Structure formats: C-alpha cells, structure tokens
C-alpha cells in the first residue's frame, strides 16, 4: 500500500488547515476595515512572490509587473462588470462583452491568461537582453500599457477610470490563490526546472554551457510570474472596485519592490513578511500624514510622508542589509534557532 501521508505532504496540509481556520475566525470576528487590510496583505503577497519568481529566483530584472497587473485588472474587471454599467458607460464595446457578466473565477483565469499571452509576446524578443537593458524594456511595457489604458477610452474610459467593479475578492479567494502560488513556487524550485532557473541567475554563461536552454527557461519563468501577476491584478481590482491608468504608475511598482527587497531574493516567507510590513506600515503612519495631535504636539498635515519614510527605509536597507531580512533563505525554526544562538554566543 502506498503511503500518502508522509512528512512532506502532511505538513502543508496542516498549514492549509490552520489557515482555513484562521480565515473563518477572521471573517466572524474582525471589522470590515481589518478584513480589507488582510485582503490587501494577501494580494500584495501574491504580487511580490510573482516579482520574486523573475527578479529573485531567475535574475531577470523586470519592471513589467505594473503592466501585467494592469492588463489583467482591466480584462477581468470588464468581464465581471454588470451589463447595465457597460451599456451606459461603455456603449462602444462589442455586444457579447456588454452582455457578459461573469463570476470571478473564469474572469480571473481569462484575465491572467491574456496577461501571460500579451506579456510574453511583448517580452519575447527582449528576453535575450541582460541586466538593466531588460529592465528598461519591461519598463517600456508597463508605460505602454498605461498609455494605451489612458487613450483607449472606448474600452477603459481612460482617466475617468473603470468604476463599479463588484467586490468579488474575499479572503478565501485571495488566500486560496496565495497558497496555490506558494505550492507552485516550492514545487518548481525543488525540481530540475527550478534549479535551471537558479543556475541562470548565478551564471548565465555557465548555465548555457551545461546545456540549459536559457531562452526557454527565461520565457518559462516570465510566464509563470506573469500568470500570478495577472491573478494578483484581477483579485486587486475586485477588491478596490476601481481601476485607472494611474493605478499602475511607478510609485505602485516601487512599493512592491520595497516588499521584495525587505524579504530578500528567492525567499517566499520573506516576500510574505515584506508584504505584511509594508501594507500595514502606512496604516500606522496615516494619522501623521493627516495631521493630528501626538504627545501633545500639533503635527501639521504631511502628505507624502509615508512614501518618504518608505524611501529612506529602502535606501538604508539596501546599504545595511542588501540581501533582505532572510537573504535567500526561508523562515524556519532551524534558521530562527541559529539566529538566536548567534545572538547569545556573540558576547
């Protein structure tokens, strides 16, 4: 008889079980605002891990995530929007699209798939570029998506933005997709294919000499990353209910990059913790930004303070600990133990 419940399979199952329990508790005991924050943490974690697949594991420095999110947000948003809204606000859409009012899952899958197709086709020729040349090509992608979104007014309403997208994302969808993404990434980087990607990151020339098809694997990593960026974008638009061209400007990508840098390259747990810290930090700083009385001192309104502090924080992090908090390792009890031992043995 085959043994299905080995240590390897039972551990993730326990974690998924605990997570499901936590979501149940959260839904019944937390306020709507807190559930919203929790949703945002999950969506950001999905996006940061997607960023980590290309920028962390494969060494493909990509800024395409804004454009990828954008395509998926618009496509899935258009598919789930109510027929009435589209008939009034977007009368130039084809009839079948106006009539379509899909549930979340198919819209999300179609959005993410279209994201993969467009993103990969656009990046296909530039995948052979190295370092920041590829970064520039991917930045051009994000900017072109943004420019098209603000100019194709018959489909996107341009700067008026697509409003009224239903709140279809909930904690189950968001954390369900996060679990799927984490499992895919873990399985991938345990496999031959994942090791090929890491080899390309560490030494592209050597990887090629060893017979790794560099072009194929880069495209492969980009596609997986694009898919989950698409998933994140679709979940995001069904959480915020609105999408406009400025939703994907550089400041948004910048925030994802801070989360990524905090977590460190090639670390899933790092990415998740980065997402938690940077999503919650602005909530703590918000009272400062809006001006209030703190410790008896009148603090004037300081718009932009959150971004300013994040920027300083990122520069300090890059100087003091460029490898991130976990530096390519995963959070584990063994790792924590070693850190604590290190703390105590140093004196």
């Amino acid at each position, binding site marked *: 008889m085959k043994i299905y419940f080995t240590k390897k399979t039972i551990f993730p199952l326990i974690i998924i079980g605990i997570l499901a329990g936590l979501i149940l508790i959260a839904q019944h005991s937390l306020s709507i605002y807190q559930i919203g924050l929790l949703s945002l943490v999950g969506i950001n974690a999905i996006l940061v891990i997607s960023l980590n697949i290309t*920028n962390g594991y494969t060494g493909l*420095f990509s800024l395409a995530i804004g454009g990828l999110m954008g395509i998926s947000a618009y496509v899935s948003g258009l598919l789930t929007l109510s027929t009435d809204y589209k008939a009034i606000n977007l009368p130039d859409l084809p009839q079948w699209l106006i009539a379509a009012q899909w549930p979340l899952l198919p819209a999300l899958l179609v959005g993410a798939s279209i994201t993969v197709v467009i993103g990969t086709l656009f990046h296909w*020729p*530039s995948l052979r*570029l190295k*370092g*920041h*040349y590829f*970064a*520039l*090509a991917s*930045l*051009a992608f994000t*900017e*072109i998506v943004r*420019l*098209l979104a*603000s*100019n194709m007014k018959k489909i996107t309403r341009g700067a008026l933005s697509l409003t009224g997208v239903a709140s279809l994302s909930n904690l189950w969808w968001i954390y369900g997709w996060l679990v799927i993404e984490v499992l895919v990434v873990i399985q991938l980087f345990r496999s031959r294919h994942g090791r090929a990607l890491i080899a390309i990151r560490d030494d592209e020339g050597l990887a090629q000499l060893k017979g790794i098809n560099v072009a194929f694997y880069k495209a492969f990593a980009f596609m997986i990353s694009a898919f989950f960026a698409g998933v994140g974008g679709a979940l995001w638009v069904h959480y915020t209910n609105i999408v406009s061209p400025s939703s994907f400007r*550089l*400041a948004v990508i*910048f925030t994802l*990059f*801070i989360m990524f*840098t905090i977590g460190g390259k090639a670390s899933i747990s790092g990415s998740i913790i980065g997402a938690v810290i940077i999503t919650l930090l602005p909530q703590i700083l918000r009272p400062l930004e809006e001006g209030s009385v703190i410790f008896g001192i009148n603090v004037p309104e*300081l*718009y*932009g*303070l959150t*971004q*300013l502090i*994040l*920027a*300083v924080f*990122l*520069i300090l992090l*890059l*100087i003091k600990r*460029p490898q991130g908090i976990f530096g390519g390792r995963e959070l584990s009890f063994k790792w924590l133990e070693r850190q604590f031992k290190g703390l105590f043995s140093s004196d």
Partner: protein
Amino acid sequence: MMSTQLSTILQQIVNALTIGSIYALLAIGFSMVYGVLRLINFAHGDVFMLGAYFAFLVFQALESKFLTGILLAVVLTGITGLIIERAAFRPMRGAPEGNLFISSLAVSMLIQNGVIMILGPQPQSFLIPGFLGKSINIGDVVITNIAITIFVVTIILLIILVLFLTRTKLGISMRATASNLDACHLMGINVNIAIAVAFGVSSLIAGVGGILWATRYTIFNPFTGAVPGIKAFIGALIGGIGSLQGAVIGGYLLGMLEVLVVILLPPEFAGYRDVFVFLMLIVTLLVRPQGIMGKTEK
C-alpha cells in the same frame, strides 16, 4: 509668402529643437552617471524638477534678480546631486546593478514626496522677465525668445562641458573613470571624487534644464520631472549611453520623433505619441543596444 505647409514644417522644426535641447541636457546627465557607475539614475528627472523648484524658492525668499536667482538655483541643484551621490549611492558601491537601480528609484520617490510634503502637490510657477515672453515672426513661423534662449543656452553649456571634459584634470579623470574604473584605482586617480563630479555636473546641467522647462511651460509640479526624465534616458540610450555626442544626438532625435509623430498622425491619435517613444526604445534595445555612437560593452 511661404506656403502654409512649409511654414508648418519649419514651425515644428523649431519646436523639435526646443524640446530636443532640453532632452539633450538631461540625456547628458544620464550618460555621464551611467558612464562612471553603470547606473540608470532614475532620480535624474526629479533633480531636473528640483531645479525649477529651487528657482521658485530663491525668487520667493530673496526677491533677487532673474539671472542671479537662476545661478543660485542651479548651484543648489548641483549640491543636491552631490548629496544624493554621497548618501544613496556611495555606501553601496560594488552592489549589484539591480540594487543601485532600486536605490535610485527610492531617491526619486524621496524627492517627489519631499516636495509634496513641504510645498504641496499643486502646480507652481515663477515670474519670468518680459522679454522672454516676446517672439519673432518669420513669415508664419513663430520663434519665441524662450525657444532661442533654450537653444543658445544648450549650445553654450555643451561647449563648456566639452572644454571641461577635455581640458581640465577633473574632467579627464572623470572620463578615465568611465572607461576603466579598476585601472583608475591603480593609476592613483581618486575615483570617489570623479564619481561625485559626474553627479554634481550632471545635476547642474539638469537644474538648468529644469529651469528652462519651467520658463517654457510656465508651470511645474512635483511630478514634472518623471516623463522628461524617462524620455531623456531613452534619448541617451538611442544615442549610445556613455557617449556625450550620443546623448546630444539622442536628445535631439527624440525631440524630432515626437514632433514627427504629431505631424504624421491624425489628431485623434495624439495621445499615443509617447507609445512611439517607448517602441523606439524597444527597437533600439533589440537592434542596436549600444546605441548610435556607443561601443559594445564587454
């Protein structure tokens, strides 16, 4: 009388030269910093924007004459460049390209949000002397004094820059650092000073560019630098990054391209103008990544 078609074309050439001059000034800075550090300095566009804001502040605080005020603003911008290099880039010398790039992104956010925090996000403007607002008409072609000023200032700056790079010890050591950093260490050139000079000079020039931009478009806001910054970088890349002539050629080419797209495309597609700029970037990266004047990197 000139035919209207010819005068339209001439008018557009004037526009292309004006906007191209500003792109060229910015592109030179990108090129110099890339030369010494292999860094795509994302904050350069924001330093450009700071130039305009410094001028605005100087005029408000000192009520000084136009020229002295501008000189002061340009010097302040240059000092900002030195501070940025010292605080954000020198401590991470030798880090991977990606880290430097993210750091420059952080500096860009820092500058934008700093300005928003102190002066607010609303657009600002400063008073420009009356003679700059006047214009010369040649047939149907209108040449504003601002356009002439922008072009002349750019040419003068370019001449000074070439003299600086070829005739002074600092300039030569900067070029040497750009061509081979390790050899410079061995030859006893102070690389830190050379890199700082590259930042200082590129920020000075960007400051001039920002003030010229502000006089041409009269208003500016904390995000003014972002789009010209990216475009000028594309110009520097098309011209051949690391090459001074390349940056100038690229800047003017980009000005030409923008104007051409406006002439050739029907008006309802005017919003797509920048799409062509980015497509041009992709094509350059694929066909000739070293740019027009650049040499292939080993």
